[in-house]
């Protein structure tokens, strides 16, 4: 589903954010990307969404070679990828329902799809009763669930999560992990960059550890360290 062949990303001609990384993530896998800040986790996710392009090497996502993809196709690629962030990136002036519906609306999905899919996904994340609330009326965990609903409402093949539990307390983080696990069980490939040792150790999934832009460890059912 995601394959990196000897990928290097150099920022402004000097910083090697990702340095000669090769890895292969299969459909339906759940992968933790671990490593300290600046180890290249976020850059790797941005390479997958084509927000950054590789300086060297090849990036394949959902069967597409991103080094060769034309820029007008990038949006269509992104429809196969849901993204979740530490800071949620919800739109404050839109309700929960509108925030999720927006993701379908702006890719041109017809209204009847929006009116059936949005309640279904809000039910999945357990926020049906809050659909008329605004983001600032929700707790951090609830906001993150809205952002996961938005990322998943279009049923993408891949879900990328960049420190999704970074702003949350341990119990709330657990809830979010249960939700991501549930999404993974529907066949969605989940890649999660994290610092959260407890979660990684508890989930026992594939762990790819990065240091200075290089893969230093890649284990099935691994732990944080």
């Amino acid at each position, binding site marked *: 589903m995601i394959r990196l062949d000897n990928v290097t990303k150099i920022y402004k001609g000097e910083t090697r954010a990702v340095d000669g990384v090769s890895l292969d993530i299969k459909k339906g896998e759940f992968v933790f990307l671990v490593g300290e800040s600046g180890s290249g986790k976020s850059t790797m996710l941005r390479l997958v969404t084509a927000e950054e392009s590789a300086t060297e090497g090849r990036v394949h996502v959902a069967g597409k070679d991103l080094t060769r993809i034309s820029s007008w196709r990038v949006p*269509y690629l992104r429809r196969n990828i849901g993204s979740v962030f530490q800071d949620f990136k919800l739109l404050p002036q839109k309700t929960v329902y509108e925030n999720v519906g927006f993701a379908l609306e702006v890719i041109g999905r017809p209204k009847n799809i929006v009116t059936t899919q949005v309640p279904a996904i809000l039910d999945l994340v357990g926020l049906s009763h809050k659909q008329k609330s605004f983001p600032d009326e929700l707790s951090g965990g609830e906001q993150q669930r809205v952002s996961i609903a938005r990322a998943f409402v279009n049923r993408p093949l891949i879900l990328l999560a960049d420190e999704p539990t970074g702003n949350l307390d341990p119990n709330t983080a657990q809830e979010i992990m249960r939700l991501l696990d549930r999404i993974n069980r529907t066949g969605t490939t989940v890649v999660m960059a994290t610092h959260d040792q407890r979660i990684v150790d508890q989930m026992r999934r594939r762990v790819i550890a990065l240091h200075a832009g290089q893969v230093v460890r890649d284990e099935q059912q691994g732990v944080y360290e």
Partner: protein
Amino acid sequence: MVRFLSRAGYFVRETWINVRRNLTLTVAAILTVAVGVMLVGLGLMARYASANALGRWQGGVQFEIFLEPNIAGGQIDALGEELRNHPDVERIQYITQEQAFAVLEEMLVDEPELLGEVSIESLPSSYRVVPRFAEGELIESLAAQFRQRPGVYSVETGRQQVDAIREWFNSFRWIVLLMSIVLAAASALLIFNMIRVAMFARRREIEVMKLVGATNSFIRLPFILEGMLHGLAGGIVGAVAAGVLRNHVEELFGRSEILAFFRSFTVTSSQFNTATIATVAMGVIVGALGSAFAAGRFLDV
């Protein structure tokens, strides 16, 4: 088409939100567009009016053969006979010295001291000649045939005057054109900036849209529509202003004796409609250009 219609609601809503958000800037942009396209409209109408007026003069233009004041009566009659029998001459009119003085008297009604310097005897009598055809070149050559005749003081065709007026109108048109280009550029820049501000205000939404895979054209369209809407509003205001000014000026020309000369400067209603449509279209084009440029520039994938 069906897909587009299903999105139409989205575009209308988003565009409206943008317009409301920046009311002062919106008004500034609309007014600048309005003044700019109003000049375009007026320039266009002036062009039509001058073409109409010049056409009329050229069509019915006469030339006038001024005779020496001391010309013998026989010479006058002979010349008149020759003119009447000339195949290229439609008709002629003889203006006596008394009639010429009467015309002058009328012109100098406010300056009697000037009139005092002139005596009837010092004025030339003349033949006004209406040729059978209206082309300036041919009138000129016909007039030239009489220039060297004995007893002829001078021959004046309308051509010099028509040329002078045409020249005056041409330079007027250039000035208007230049001013409207400057104002169109200013309005496009204002709209450009406004769209930039609007896009900055909505950068979070744009970020999310890009994230979930909205196409660039989908993201840009509401902003371009917004720019076009401003252009349209400015165009309509400008066209109305140009129309009001046109009526005012035509009324002024029609009423004033001094400006009687300008009476033939009128615009037909079909020309007025063309100018109005061009004015509004100009506004929309300016708006589309400014906003499309901004939307293209401030949306990096």
